[in-house]
């Protein structure tokens, strides 16, 4: 499973084409989410899918155990971005998650809310991507450990 290298040329070639394509499309979905379908959640899942695909095709063994653990820090970071942007509204004297009260000088209310939506979407994408990848690593790590013992 994850961690075992694929030596097949077709799989590696397809992977090297697909992974960057999916990642670029995920970024497009993330930053275009205010104009078309998409947004933070979908973008996060797509980034996670591309990372899992890359790990499946090009992964080296032995890295995923430590990576699953250190990834969880990034999980909290996404949530922190969301809460921090929401808290900016509190600092500016408004309600929690009311981005129009955020203390960003020189911007009209609507632009502040626009920026708030963009930043929280990045937070959600980070949170979802890291959570999904770390779940995949947690699941596959145990599977690989059993295969190694047998």
């Amino acid at each position, binding site marked *: 499973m994850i961690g075992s290298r694929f030596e097949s040329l077709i799989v590696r070639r397809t992977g090297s084409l697909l992974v960057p394509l999916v990642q670029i499309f995920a970024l497009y979905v993330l930053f275009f989410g205010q104009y078309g379908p998409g947004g933070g959640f979908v973008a996060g*899942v797509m980034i996670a899918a591309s990372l899992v695909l890359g790990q499946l095709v090009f992964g080296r063994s032995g890295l995923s155990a430590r990576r699953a653990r250190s990834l969880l820090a990034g999980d909290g970071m996404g949530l922190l971005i*969301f809460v921090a942007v929401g808290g900016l509204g509190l600092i500016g004297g408004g309600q929690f998650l009311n981005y129009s009260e955020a203390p960003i000088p020189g911007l009209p209310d609507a632009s502040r809310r626009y920026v708030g939506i963009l930043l929280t979407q990045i937070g959600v994408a980070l949170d979802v991507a890291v959570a999904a990848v770390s779940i*995949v690593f947690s699941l596959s790590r145990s599977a690989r450990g059993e295969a190694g013992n047998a």
Partner: protein
Amino acid sequence: MTYSFELPLLVLLILTAGGAILVKDLISAVLILGSYSFFLALIWAWLGAADVAFVEAVVGAGLATVFFLLTLFRTAPDDTRIRRPRPPVVVVVALPLLGMLLLYAASDLPSFGDPASPASTHVSPHYLENSVADTLTPNVVTSVLMDYRALDTLIETVVVFTSGIACWLLLRRDPE
């Protein structure tokens, strides 16, 4: 309204759902479930819910399939055949009755796209009319999720965060 597109999709949806239940092998069931999600995404897209279709395609057909397969390889690596006991008589009698009851209740729901339904008259007009002026965001789904209803989304993000933490805590193997 013509049903030339919905009807084949609905038939495929029911076929894949039934196939996922009736198939004899767990891996086949997981893959059929992935195709079920794909057809469901097509139906959402046809109904105009592009965001929901997007999530269904990426999560249901992509990530959930990977999760299922990984869990399968972890729990039952050798034998993935399903041994299914016969369902009890109560289930065979009660489930169709429950289905009939649900269909009967569904006839009371407002029809699709009804402008007088409660869902279209309460707060949605406000969001639809003011989204661009308030937030400069033409996609109302995004502005509702991230601005008007941001607290809901925050709690959902907390749920995702918790699931990542819980999976790591439950599945870790290292003794430290």
